[in-house]
C-alpha cells in the first residue's frame, strides 16, 4: 500500500508529451468538406449484409471521428491513471489532459472560468444536478418552474420531481401550431413567481431552434434563472453563455462526436458556489470529519467519485475536431441537408413532417407516413442500410401534443450528404411497396 504513496522518481527535466496534447492541438481549419466523412471510420464500413450504412440517427448519438477513437485508445494504452492529484507521471498527465478539456469546453461555450465547467455523465445528470443542488433547498410552495411540451423527458421529469418534492408548481409555455414556443403568450406563464425556465436549445423531435436570447431577457426581467438543455443544439451551432447570459447549460459528449459517459454542466460561478453538492463522496470534499464535512472548491464540489477520465479527455479532442471544422461550416452543411431532406420528404404523398419551417429548425426531420407505421418504416429502412429511430424519442408529451403515438426521425450531422437523403427517400417507397400500400 505504501508504495503508491512513495515519492515518485521523476527526473526534474522530464518533459511531458501527452499525445492528446490539448491546448496546442492542431486544428483543421482548411479541411475540405468531402473528407469529413472519411474521418469517421464506421461510415466507411458496410453493414453485415454488405449494404452501405446511411446513418441518420445522430440526434440520438453521433458517430466518432478517428481522432476521438485514437484519443481513447492512446489514453488507455500510454498514460492512463485515475484523475485528481496522482503525483506519478500518468496521474499528472491525466490531470493536465482533463483540465485541458475543461479549458477547451469553457472556451467553446464562452465561459468566464474553466471551473464553471463541471464534468457529468451527460445531459441527464447535468439537469438532475441543477434540479437537486439548486432546487431542493430553494423552492417552496408558490414558486414556479417553467417548462414546455417539446422538452425531452430529461428536461421535464427532473422538474416534475423537484416540483413534487418542494411544493413548487410546473407551468408550460404554450406552443404555436407549427411547434415553436409561443412567446406572444409568455406573459401568461412567466411571472414574478417563476424561479427557473428550463428550455431546450433545439427540440430533439421537431428540430425547433428556440429563441434563447429573448427567453433569457424575459426570464431575467422577472428574476428567473434559465437552464438550457443543449444536448441537441451545442453540437450544431455556436453558443456563447455570455450572450445571451445563460445561467446553466447542459450537454452530452456523445452527441458532439465524443465518447459516451461524459457530459457537461456549465453553471455561472456565483450560482454553483452557493449550491449544495449533488453527489457526495470522494473528491468533492475539503475536509471530512466523522460527523460532518466541508465541500471542495469548484469544480470538484460537483465531481464526486471517479470521473470518466479517458472519455473526458477524448471529449476535448471532439471539441477540437468540431471547432476545427467550425460552426459556420457545420451550419452550412447541415442547413443544406435539412432543406433538401425537408423538400424531398414533403413531396411524398401522405408523408407529414412535424415541426416548423426550415428557417426555425435544425437538421432533424421527424415524420409520419399515413400508410406505414413508424416502427415498420424503421424496420424496412434498416434493410436499405438506413439507421433512423422510430418511437416517441423520449418526448411523450410532445407526441400527445402532435396527436401521434410515434414518429420516424431522421437526424443529420456534418458527415451526412445528399446520397443519404436519396437512400432515405427510396427506402420510404420501398417500405410502402413491401407493405403493399404504394
Amino acid at each position, binding site marked *: 500500500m505504501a508504495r503508491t504513496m512513495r515519492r515518485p522518481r521523476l527526473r526534474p527535466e522530464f518533459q511531458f508529451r501527452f499525445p492528446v496534447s490539448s491546448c496546442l492541438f492542431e486544428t483543421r481549419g482548411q479541411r475540405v468538406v468531402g473528407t469529413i466523412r472519411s474521418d469517421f471510420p464506421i461510415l466507411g464500413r458496410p453493414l453485415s449484409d454488405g449494404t452501405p450504412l446511411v446513418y441518420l440517427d445522430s440526434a440520438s448519438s453521433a458517430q466518432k471521428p478517428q481522432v476521438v477513437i485514437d484519443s481513447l485508445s492512446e489514453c488507455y494504452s500510454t498514460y492512463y491513471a485515475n484523475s485528481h492529484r496522482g503525483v506519478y507521471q500518468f496521474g499528472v498527465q491525466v490531470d493536465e489532459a482533463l483540465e485541458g478539456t475543461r479549458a477547451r469546453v469553457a472556451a467553446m461555450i464562452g465561459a468566464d472560468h474553466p471551473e464553471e465547467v463541471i464534468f457529468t455523465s451527460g445531459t441527464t445528470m447535468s439537469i438532475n444536478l441543477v434540479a437537486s443542488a439548486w432546487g431542493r433547498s430553494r423552492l417552496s410552495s408558490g414558486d414556479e418552474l417553467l417548462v414546455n411540451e417539446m422538452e425531452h423527458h430529461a428536461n421535464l421529469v427532473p422538474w416534475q420531481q423537484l416540483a413534487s418534492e418542494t411544493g413548487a408548481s410546473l407551468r408550460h409555455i404554450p406552443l404555436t401550431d407549427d411547434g415553436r414556443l409561443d412567446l406572444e403568450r409568455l406573459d401568461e406563464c412567466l411571472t414574478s413567481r417563476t424561479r427557473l425556465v428550463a428550455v431546450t436549445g433545439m427540440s430533439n423531435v421537431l428540430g425547433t431552434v428556440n429563441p434563447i436570447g429573448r427567453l433569457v431577457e424575459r426570464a431575467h426581467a422577472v428574476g428567473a434563472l434559465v437552464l438550457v438543455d443543449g444536448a441537441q443544439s451545442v453540437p450544431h451551432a455556436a453558443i456563447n453563455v455570455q450572450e445571451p447570459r445563460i445561467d446553466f447549460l447542459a450537454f452530452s459528449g456523445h452527441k458532439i462526436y465524443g465518447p459516451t459517459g461524459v457530459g457537461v454542466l456549465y453553471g455561472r460561478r456565483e450560482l454553483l458556489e452557493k449550491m449544495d453538492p449533488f453527489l457526495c463522496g470522494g473528491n468533492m470534499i475539503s475536509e471530512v470529519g466523522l460527523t460532518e464535512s466541508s465541500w471542495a472548491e469548484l469544480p470538484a464540489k460537483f465531481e464526486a467519485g471517479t470521473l470518466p477520465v479517458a472519455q473526458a479527455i477524448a471529449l476535448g479532442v471532439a471539441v477540437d475536431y468540431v471547432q476545427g471544422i467550425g460552426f459556420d461550416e457545420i451550419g452550412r452543411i447541415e442547413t443544406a441537408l435539412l432543406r433538401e431532406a425537408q423538400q424531398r420528404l414533403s413531396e411524398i404523398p401522405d408523408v407529414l413532417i412535424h415541426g416548423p419551417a426550415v428557417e426555425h429548425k435544425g437538421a432533424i426531420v421527424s415524420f409520419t407516413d399515413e400508410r406505414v407505421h413508424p416502427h*415498420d418504416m424503421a424496420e424496412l429502412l434498416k434493410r436499405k442500410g438506413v439507421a433512423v429511430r422510430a418511437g416517441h424519442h423520449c418526448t411523450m408529451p410532445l407526441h400527445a401534443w402532435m396527436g401521434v403515438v*410515434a414518429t420516424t426521425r431522421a437526424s443529420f450531422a456534418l458527415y451526412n450528404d445528399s446520397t443519404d437523403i436519396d437512400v432515405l427517400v427510396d427506402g420510404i417507397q420501398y417500405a410502402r411497396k413491401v407493405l403493399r400500400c404504394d
Partner: protein
Amino acid sequence: MSDELYDELILDHYESPYHRGELESPSCTHTEHNPLCGDRVQLQLQIGSDQRIEQAFFDGEGCAISQAAASILCEHIEGKTLEEIEAFTAAAMLELLKVRLTAVRQRCGLLGFKVLKTLAYSYDGSHDEAAEASA
C-alpha cells in the same frame, strides 16, 4: 416473392384482420401498450361455461407486426379452453407468426399474447367470484 418479415400471412392479417373490433358483452377485456413504440392491443374474450373461448376480438393500433399478430392470435385461440391457453407458450405464439422476429420486434409480436395471458390468469378469479355471487 415473399418478404422475410412482412410475408403474406402477416400482411393479409394486417390488411384484413380477423375479428378486429369489440364484443357486445365480453367475459373479459384487457389492454396493453408497448411503451417504446406506442403499439396498443385490446383483447376481448367471450368465455363459455365450459371454460372455452367462444369468441376473441382485438382492437388497437400499431405496427404491422403487433396488429397482425393480434389478429392471428384471435383466430388461433377461438375454441381453446383456458387450460389450453395456460399451456400456450410465447415460443408457440412466435411460431404461429411464421417469421423470425428480432428481440425488439418480439415485443410487438407478443403484445397480444401478453394481453391474453393476463386475461387468462385473472379470469379464473373473477369467474369464481361471479359464480360465488350468483350462488
